[in-house]
């Protein structure tokens, strides 16, 4: 569904070189790599915020460059860490912003828009925050509101930049579990960047490893997440065994010394 073809991007120095990657409908792809590998840049290119100098991005076999801003926002939702908002916006207003591309540029939010916003908040276990100011929420709570906003866009493709970074353990699991359910239910594609390699092993259908702007491997977690490849990726000795219940790869780090 979303396809990067031989994408390269330079910003003073080369950030991405010759990346080809496809995310199919109903599939969750995790992007793993050390800091500065180019993961966030890749997401920015995948949602049309940055234009690659070489190569192209296609969605449903149409170049992303042909999409209008509003079309992209109805198709692809990007979730990044929420910054501070300097105005006393409520969480519900924040989520309603996700309806922008679906509504007319003028007028009130329709009942339909409000209901979708509420539904997204409910799905994120965050309806109780609806009338609370966004700035009064903790960073983990904000992250759920940001994800609710992305869901309110009703996208066909979800790009997540460390969606679980500020969430507590229970919400990390429930959040990714929810995303997975939605992926199946709406046949939505998901590309997510994470440093939680065990979560990636558990929830991703495919994993892509990126280092110094190049894809070094891609495939199912069972094939890709080997001690060799991951230790090389993170330059850290890692031990891999099987999760006793799910049977997915389980990564443990060995002592640094």
């Amino acid at each position, binding site marked *: 569904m979303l396809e990067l073809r031989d994408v390269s991007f330079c910003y003073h120095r080369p950030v991405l070189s010759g990346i080809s990657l496809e995310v199919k409908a109903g599939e969750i792809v995790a992007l793993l790599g050390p800091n500065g590998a180019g993961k966030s840049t890749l997401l920015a290119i995948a*949602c049309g*915020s940055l234009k690659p100098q070489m190569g192209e991005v296609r969605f449903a076999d149409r170049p992303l460059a042909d999409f209008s*801003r*509003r079309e*992209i*926002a*109805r198709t692809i*939702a*990007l979730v*990044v860490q929420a*910054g*501070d*908002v*300097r*105005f*006393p*916006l*409520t969480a*519900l*207003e*924040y989520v*309603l*912003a*996700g309806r*922008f*591309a679906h*509504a007319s*540029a*003028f007028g*009130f*939010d329709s*009942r339909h828009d*409000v*209901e979708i916003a*509420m539904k997204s908040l*409910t799905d994120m276990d965050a*309806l*109780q925050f*609806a*009338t609370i100011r966004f*700035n009064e929420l903790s960073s983990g709570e904000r992250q759920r509101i940001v994800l609710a*906003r992305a869901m309110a*866009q009703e996208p066909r493709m979800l790009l997540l930049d460390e969606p679980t970074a500020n969430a507590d353990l229970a919400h990390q699991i429930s959040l990714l579990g929810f995303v997975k359910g939605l992926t199946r239910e709406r046949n939505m594609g998901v590309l997510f960047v994470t440093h939680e390699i065990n979560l990636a092993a558990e929830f991703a259908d495919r994993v892509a490893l990126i280092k110094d702007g190049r894809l070094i491997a891609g495939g199912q977690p069972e094939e890709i997440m080997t001690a060799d490849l991951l230790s090389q990726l993170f330059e850290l000795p890692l031990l891999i065994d099987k999760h006793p219940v799910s049977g997915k790869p389980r990564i443990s780090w060995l002592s640094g010394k």
Partner: protein
Amino acid sequence: MKAEQLLKQNTGRPIAGGYLTHSRVLVVIPSLIIALLLGSLFALAIGSEHIAFDRILGAIWAKLTGMTIGLTPEEEVIIFSLRLPRIALAMAVGAALAMSGAAFQALLRNPLADPYVLGVSGGAALGSILSIMFASGLVFSRPIFAFAGAATATLVVYLIGKRKDDPAHLILAGVVISTFISSLIVILTALADNVKLRNITLWLLGDLSSGSIDGMIVVIIAASTGTAVLMTQSRALNLMMIGERDAFSLGVETARVRWIVYLTASLLTGAAVAAGGAIGYAGLVVPHLVRLAAGTDNRLVIPASAIGGALLVLLADTAARTLLAPRELPTGAITALIGAPVFIYLLIRSRKYA
């Protein structure tokens, strides 16, 4: 399940606090209009010659219906030739400045932004002075020059502001731009001859007493066009207020919105300053009070700021011409008296968030 029920059931809070509803608009806008009408009636009544309310209402009724009423010729002149045009000017200037403030705040994501504080009013003043000194023969040269000055100052403020995302940083830039422009103005006034000079110094502090009918018409046109244009961008501005990157990924053509809003805000400031001088802080105080009372949604903040700004400058101007009568104070002195403390309060509070 209905959205309202869902929310009430789960939060026990009224939905009115959650997002912009029809009922919120239907409370805020009519109350402000009523307050503005009462304010203008009050402003028509008081001054060196007090005129009773019933006589004013009678006179307006008579004007509208074409009947005659027992007004003395003096009263007629005071109401329709002296006070009414000045009231109209004060309201249009106030509406323009307050909206321009609301627009700058949303666009720069900075609750401290105000055309005066940012130096945009200063740019407009410099433009006006250049037009008075060198191009006074041209039609509408003053508003055009003022607009050019405001737009230039805005551009400089923007270029500085986008380098660092800190509200206080932008305000410092505004202070520096204002001081720089002030010294240019001082140099220019030193070059000007005496008659022109007298006009300039009073008017720099915000002075509605010498407003012309032409200037008034320009501000009224600018304020109504500005309201219309900003209203079409208000939904996009709601998203820009969260962050430009967020707005972009949610479907806003951020570059286009930025240009439209910058030009409109500069036009509003330029027209207001050309007609009424650099009246400060209306653009800061009014949107802030509106947000406190009615929430942050720009679809309501922009029109409510227009009416609220009209009311604030009207009252400030009425105070300016009556407090020390027969002497007159500059209107800008009154608005700064209210605005400066509000600014300090907001500055302290913004530090907590930044």
